[in-house]
């Protein structure tokens, strides 16, 4: 099986599609994405990635910033970031 190419590249600039947003759930102490008539929990690195989406920074700039913040190799961060953002773009949670 071959993997589908990512719809998101380092030059892409993304933001949340209308009707979607990242939010901290104080009561349950988890990060969630609010969406039309549902909400889903985002864990691990995902909230750190998603909070940087502002419709101005490119994906590459986000990777750069996280690599510095977490003192982690850029290629490791890049893999996680591209996978997550591609998945959420395919689901129309994010858009360019």
């Amino acid at each position, binding site marked *: 099986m071959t993997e589908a190419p990512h719809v998101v590249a380092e030059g892409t600039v993304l933001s949340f*599609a*209308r*009707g979607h*947003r990242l*939010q901290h*759930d104080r*009561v*349950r102490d988890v990060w*969630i994405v*609010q969406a*039309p*008539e549902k*909400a889903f929990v985002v864990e691990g690195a995902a909230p750190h990635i998603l909070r940087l989406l502002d419709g101005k920074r490119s994906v590459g700039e986000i990777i750069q910033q996280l690599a510095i913040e977490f003192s982690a190799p850029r290629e490791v961060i890049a893999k996680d970031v591209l996978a997550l953002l591609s998945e959420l773009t395919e689901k*129309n949670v994010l858009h360019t």
Partner: protein
Amino acid sequence: MTLPSPPMSLLAELTHRCPLSCPYCSNPLELERKAAELDTATWTAVLEQAAELGVLQVHFSGGEPMARPDLVELVSVARRLNLYSNLITSGVLLDEPKLEALDRAGLDHIQLSFQDVTEAGAERIGGLKGAQARKVAAARLIRASGIPMTLNFVVHRENVARIPEMFALARELGAGRVEIAHTQYYGWGLKNREALLPSRDQLEESTRAVEAERAKGGLSVDYVTPDYHADRPKPCMGGWGQRFVNVTPSGRVLPCHAAEIIPDVAFPNVQDVTLSEIWNISPLFNMFRGTDWMPEPCRSCERKERDWGGCRCQAMALTGNAANTDPVCSLSPYHDRVEQAVENNMQPESTLFYRRYT
């Protein structure tokens, strides 16, 4: 004592007043009047208490929630509290200035109901002349505003054959999501069951239409089946008092919108008690929470934490005891009552009882 996990969503029934009179309305047979409706300050307090308790999404519903002049204000309260706000509307009272005001207030999503794709079908169910054109106009305004929109179609034996046209209308109007919801047989729906319940063939046809549409992609489809044709019950409301809380126009707090048919229990009101106290410790919310209340065959069933014994209101309506297993379940000793209703449906009624104030 550990507290139950908090609710995810609040259904705020702002009013039971509505320009339409659909015979499957989810409101109770005894509709609440305008004079009994909560005021803006009380609804604001309800929203604040809901957010504090852990509610994430508020669904402004009715009746027709746009009949309330304070809807825009309540949407901005929800926005301030970081609650995701969804407007569930018939669209017939929507115009451009009202939509702009809702948009500015921070409304997140709109669920717009359609009764049918044809004018005749829509007027037969909704009872309002010209409603279909107003709904189409409302959908175009919503689309232009950019607010995400779900079209909702309640289906039954009279319109179920037109599901493919419903999808076509949703695509034409630019809806991101469509909900095809078979009528649920409580309250008004139950009163009209002999006219509305689809045949097994119709149900299978509708399921095929939904699958075919999903295969096309580009449109997200929610599908709610009628449980009369099933042999295992639905996990009604995701379990009693587990995810969902409903506040009626007069402030009664319910685990589901049909729960007022449950006898011998007090329905707490937000005018007397806080939402958190009601959710956590009221007898109403605890009476069917979890699995301890279950009789056989539920008690020893491996599915008991999947379907939570099905629907309490259906057990009440069809067996006379809300603590019985949902009679949709083939393991219920009352399952023949559901089978009988399906069989009767070989000669359907054509008279409809329209929703109205008594």
